[in-house]
């Protein structure tokens, strides 16, 4: 078969995988939701444990670090809260995407389902979990009597961009980790470092003249695209462009990976 033909066929198969995966939405929403329930099964609070976890972190870090940085609690705590919610999503995608395909081995080997279905299931579960964290943000707004204004609605497109990036990244990470089993470990160390070097519990202006250290960090922009509107500020043009650029690169990498190696996933797991 000529190479061009082969490429067209691979492309058609990848597109078919995508449309089939979308059509399976009753299945992946259910599986994604079951994943959450499974994780918190038979605990009284269920998925709201994630909420409690973030709430305690936000209060503790907000109180202590506002003293260290000499910032008002009313300023730092909402900042930490919005940042942690966004970071919680990003980091859990990076940490758990490694088992996206290898963890679904029993399914993949027994039944032909579109591969992107597993990506949808994964991302849906993560989004549903983030939704449980949002109440803390609203409680903080009430407590500190802050009103971010209509700008806060800009967080929605920001969140959509984050979700799209999560889908692309989890596909790439999931495939790469199915083949090379040490990738999840590398990511685990990376996530830990990123949490400290990215302005989540601290603000970029604390860097003073060295604020480029934050601006050069792509994860700062990914967080800022959601956090800034939640705090009543429009994200900067730089943040918007960097996020869009990340999305494009992320999409290209995931797309190429999927086109090239889709058929190999079953052999890798």
């Amino acid at each position, binding site marked *: 078969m000529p190479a061009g033909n082969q490429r067209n066929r691979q492309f058609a198969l990848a597109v078919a995988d995508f449309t089939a995966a979308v059509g399976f939405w*009753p*299945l992946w929403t259910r599986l994604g939701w079951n994943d959450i329930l499974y994780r918190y099964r038979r605990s009284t609070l269920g998925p709201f444990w994630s909420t409690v976890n973030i709430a305690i972190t936000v209060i503790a870090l907000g109180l202590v670090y506002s003293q260290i940085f000499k910032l008002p609690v009313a300023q730092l705590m909402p900042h930490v809260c919005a940042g942690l919610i966004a970071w919680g999503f990003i980091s859990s995608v990076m940490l758990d995407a490694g088992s996206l395909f290898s963890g679904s081995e029993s399914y993949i*080997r027994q039944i*032909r389902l579109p591969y992107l279905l597993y990506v949808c299931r994964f991302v849906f579960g993560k989004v549903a979990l983030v939704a449980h964290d949002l109440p803390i943000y609203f409680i903080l707004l009430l407590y500190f009597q802050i009103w971010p204004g209509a700008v806060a609605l800009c967080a929605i497109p920001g969140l959509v961009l984050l979700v799209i990036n999560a889908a692309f990244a989890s596909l790439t990470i999931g495939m790469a980790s199915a083949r090379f089993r040490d990738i999840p470990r590398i990511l685990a160390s990376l996530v830990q470092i990123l949490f400290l070097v990215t302005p989540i519990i601290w603000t970029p202006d604390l860097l003073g003249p060295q604020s480029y250290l934050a601006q050069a960090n792509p994860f700062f922009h990914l967080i800022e695209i959601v956090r800034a509107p939640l705090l009543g500020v429009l994200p900067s043009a730089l943040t918007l462009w960097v996020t869009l650029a990340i999305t494009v690169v992320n999409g290209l990498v995931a797309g190429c990976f999927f086109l090239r190696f889709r058929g190999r996933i079953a052999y*890798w797991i």
Partner: protein
Amino acid sequence: MTRQPDASAIVSLDRVRISFPIYQGGSRSLKKRMLFRGSAGRIGRDAGDQIVIEALREVSVSLGAGDRVALIGANGAGKTTLLRAIAGIYEPVQGEVVTRGRISPMFDLNVGIDGDLSGFDNIHLRALLLGLTPSEIERRMPEIVEFTELGDHLEMPVRTYSAGMILRLSFAVATCFEPEILLMDEWILAGDAQFMAKAETRVSRFVERATVVVLASHNLDLCSRWCNTGIWLDRGSIREIGPIDQVIRQYQTFVSKGGAR
């Protein structure tokens, strides 16, 4: 049954080759791979030594409506791999698999069973997994429930079920709809005798309704009862293909001679 792919074929395989790379510790590690690349093979040499198992070699077959095929052969001959290749689980390294119609794989009935969910929820989940829409599931639910004979147990989490009860449940879902291409592995032979008697009537009805059936089994008696065509697989290639009785006879003669090669 012809070897040439034709328009009426529902399942057709054209010179399909499937080989499994064996990822031994070393080649699975990115670090070793990098070391290997960087040092031109001096360090971490094992990363390059990739063993490949040829599971199917140049398998060409074309099945049309009404074909009931039994795959026979020794363990490791490639029966399960062939089934999974038809199911689209393994994409061939070389060659092509073309199928038309809904594929009903019955390999592992326990896939997707979640022990903490109730019987009802599991029926729902499994049916979604098999590609049924929520409204179809709603419609077939009474029939499924009736066949499982589990009654009030369906309200309980599946982890409280015995293995036999789980089998009934997944079996009922797996056989509740019209199959087109039915692929079955030898799990059929497992399970308690009483249930199997009932299951067999249901499976044979299921088999009758299917357009194409491919069954991999060591049970030659079952093969000759349900199938009209036999494919004898030997170390990844088709050794014999033809009417079931003839292929079984040849296979039995071969086995009784001690499988001399």
